[in-house]
């Protein structure tokens, strides 16, 4: 699975995710990637792209939960994403990338690793696996 989230200097957000699914999956099986609110979601507050074990991500409505925690509980992007990855999604199944309208970035995961990279206007860049 691959994904990208971006916010421009006006605070406009977008999310995109694409995948081949699971090895040896049944023909016709749909994962979290194309399900709005599970593997992919964006609104005026944040943009989220998730990856990992699709069935667990769908059950936990991962992407929408991050946005909802920010919208209804006033959590920061990092707090919301950390809560969803550490408390909602089963351990070892989920990673996500997210940006907020104010230019925050977070890339938490509860698997062994996640191929990821990010950059912000104030000069921070990161590229990591584990």
């Amino acid at each position, binding site marked *: 699975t691959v994904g*990208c989230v971006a916010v*421009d200097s006006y605070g406009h957000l977008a999310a*995109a995710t*694409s995948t*081949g699914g699971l090895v040896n999956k049944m023909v016709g099986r749909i994962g979290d990637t194309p399900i709005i609110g599970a593997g992919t979601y964006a609104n005026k507050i944040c943009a989220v792209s998730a990856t990992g074990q699709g069935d667990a991500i769908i059950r936990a409505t991962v992407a929408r939960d991050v946005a909802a925690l920010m919208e209804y509980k006033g959590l920061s992007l990092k707090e919301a994403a950390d809560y969803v990855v550490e408390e909602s999604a*089963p*351990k070892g199944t989920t990673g996500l990338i997210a940006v907020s309208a104010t230019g*925050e970035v977070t*890339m938490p*995961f509860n698997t062994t690793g996640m191929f990821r990279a990010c950059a912000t206007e104030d000069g921070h860049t990161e590229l990591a696996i584990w």
Partner: protein
Amino acid sequence: MGWAIALHGGAGDIPKDLPPELREPREVCLRYCLQMGVDALKAHKSPLDVVELVVRELENNPYFNAGKGSVLTSNGTVEMEACIMDGNTKNCGAVSGLTTVVNAISLARLVMEKTPHIYLAFEGAEAFAREQGVETMDPSHFITPRNIERLKQAKEANRVQVDYNTRPIPKDEKPPGPNGDSQLG
């Protein structure tokens, strides 16, 4: 706080001893895609254009599980899916079950912009792709020797595998609970 971008190439049970010949090409691609996205944001492209641009590049890289390099179904076929969403309008597009479309993410965007729907799948999505004239290839274009091998391993173990599991998920076994020492993901 200004612009920001993040991208991923999949999560899972990525072994710490991943050999350099598998780790480095992925890191090179992530670095290239990050720079491409940053340059597009600096050029004031819309976030929608930026995320589509970056995911297209990742789809075209055979080291990632999307587009070329997609993992295989139990029938040894490729079924690709993608989704794109614009935060301002909440417009979104999604596709599933693609077998010939080179960039699923661009077809998802066309679903969002050229149809009254959000989601097209399987033969309907393939027909829409032809109607829109997006680039398509023979399904064999997307199949790599490495993924044929991975399917073989998964079949021998009668399991399904997430992006990077070294130990596939047993089909009949539910993943260990949250406090389990999960090797899944």
